[in-house]
């Protein structure tokens, strides 16, 4: 049996990457001759899984939905939630415990693996055969891959975002809900969220949801090099996103950073200016629908990976674009 952690959006629906993880689980199940797929959701003290969620999970081929409930699971705690997931694993005899490679997914799988005394593979892309069970995962922020052997049971891992496309199953599952209230040891609740503050509006929120993002990297040249870029941002109703070189130098605040350790963006158009396209930056912008790179170096990875490019100094190209936009608007 394959046990997959399903994370929920605030409205109770499954997050996209969890549906990707379920798709991965189904491929694994098919290779293993149809081992059933069960899901685990943490309901805490809120209402259990909604009918919509149950239907969604059925569509993805889930047999049983374990809904973990109770006061002790109301607030997040890595150790507490992992111990609850392990209660399910004991009951269901799962040979695989997996999650999407989100912050929570990676954290919980690390707890599960440490408690079970087995290895954990973070950010898995594919698997090769089941005996032995070997997975390929992203390392060095995606710049390299590692083949890793998961020879212990349960095999514990997380699935990298976009490793597979979320696809419903040919045959839906029953998705029977089994509510469980596991007992959690007090020691596992010591490190527990005591309060949550809503994110400040207009911080990284606008960057993550913007239709157009203008990017700026070292090529901006210094803290005073952003004038034309900000003007372009204004003209396009866009958000500004920057590279780590820019935030480390203190030219712009960290909440504007795009990349592995910044925001992940998925705009209609991303316009990286003076950004080389290091893998850690690419990790945050690869989901943009269109990329227009502006760079002096035609060989920069950002240019070769982009859909469109202008080769030149951003301090000449960007003002000319601004001028052209104003001219056309009359």
């Amino acid at each position, binding site marked *: 049996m394959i046990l997959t952690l399903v994370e929920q959006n605030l409205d109770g629906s499954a997050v996209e990457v969890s549906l990707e993880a379920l798709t991965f689980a189904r491929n694994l199940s098919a290779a293993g001759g149809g081992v059933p797929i069960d899901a685990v959701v943490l309901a805490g003290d809120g209402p259990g899984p909604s009918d919509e969620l149950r239907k969604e999970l059925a569509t993805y081929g889930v047999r049983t939905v374990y809904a973990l409930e109770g006061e002790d699971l109301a607030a*997040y705690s890595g150790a507490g939630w992992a111990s609850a997931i392990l209660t399910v694993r004991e009951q269901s005899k799962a040979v695989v415990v997996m999650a999407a490679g*989100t*912050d929570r997914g990676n954290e919980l799988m690390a*707890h599960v693996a*440490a408690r079970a005394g087995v*290895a*954990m*593979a*973070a950010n898995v892309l594919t698997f090769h055969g089941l005996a032995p069970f*070997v997975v390929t995962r*992203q*390392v*060095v*922020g995606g*710049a*390299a*891959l*590692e*083949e890793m*052997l998961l*020879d212990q049971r349960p095999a514990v891992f*997380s699935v990298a975002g976009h490793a597979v496309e979320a696809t419903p199953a040919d045959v839906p599952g029953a998705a029977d809900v089994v509510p469980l209230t596991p007992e959690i040891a007090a020691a596992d609740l*010591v*490190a527990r*969220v*005591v309060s*949550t503050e*809503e*994110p400040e509006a207009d911080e990284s929120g606008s960057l993550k949801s913007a239709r*157009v993002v203008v990017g700026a990297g070292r090529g901006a040249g210094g803290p005073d090099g952003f004038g034309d870029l900000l003007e372009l941002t204004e003209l*396009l109703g866009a958000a500004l996103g920057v590279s*780590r070189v820019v935030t480390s130098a203190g030219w712009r605040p960290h*909440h504007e*950073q795009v990349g592995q*350790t*910044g925001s992940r963006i998925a705009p*209609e158009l991303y316009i990286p200016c003076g950004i080389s396209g*290091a*893998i*850690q930056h690419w990790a945050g912008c690869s989901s943009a629908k*269109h990329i*227009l*790179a502006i760079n002096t170096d*035609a060989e920069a990875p950002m240019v070769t990976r*982009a*859909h*469109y*490019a*202008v*080769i*030149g*100094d951003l301090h*000449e*190209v960007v003002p*000319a*674009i601004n001028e*052209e*936009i104003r001219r*056309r*608007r009359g």
Partner: protein
Amino acid sequence: MTGVLVCVKRVPDSSSEVVLTDDAQAVDGRFAGFTMSPHEECAVELAVQVTGATGGEATVLTLGDADAVEQLRSALAVGCQAATLVTADASSYGPADVAREIAAVVRDHAAAGRAHELVLLGNDAADSGDFQVGIRLAYELGRPVVNGARVVSVDGDTVVARVEGPDGTETYRVPLPAVVTIREGGVEPRYPSVPGRMKAKKVEVEERGPSAEPTGPKRVKLLLPPPVPSNVQVLGTGAAAAPAVVDLFEELGVLTR
């Protein structure tokens, strides 16, 4: 007074092209040079801030080869006061091995009267990216762990950690001793001053061997992802490309009036 241990890893600089070693077991850093992850730079900064505020000692630790002293010195240069090198080939250590070695140092130091009430690590190492050494360490030591914090401070016997969670900024208040893993973005790591560098050179680094044989990582081998063919359409060179760019904006429907 809170004693803080901060764990850093010497990793190849991966901001440019990544090259693998001949045995495909590690990233070859001989060309690009070595560094530590941005998360760990922030962990070092927080270790210095916490010990500064509480009057405790900040110790930096790494498990690596003799060259990893370079990363210890850079942490000493920004305000750590003591350093420990566990001499070992990091690429033949799995995350559980590393956690066990760090735990051994914490126990030995405590026995010698140097308690590390707070242990800080990065959320994930820049090369192996296992996302788990801190959590495994917490179980080794029987301590609570907060994962992925951007800011930590100590309030009496409690560590207060703030994490950017899926629904907003989460606060944890956890009694010491504890383990916290750090994510970049909450603090600006300071630059070393000249006196800082001078002082760092004089600190004697404690060198020790590993406490046990490693069980090893479960690595079969590393490989490089296949190159992505370029499909870029060059719209032009310099300022002359502006009309073509604005045509594209119109075509994509991003130029609103």
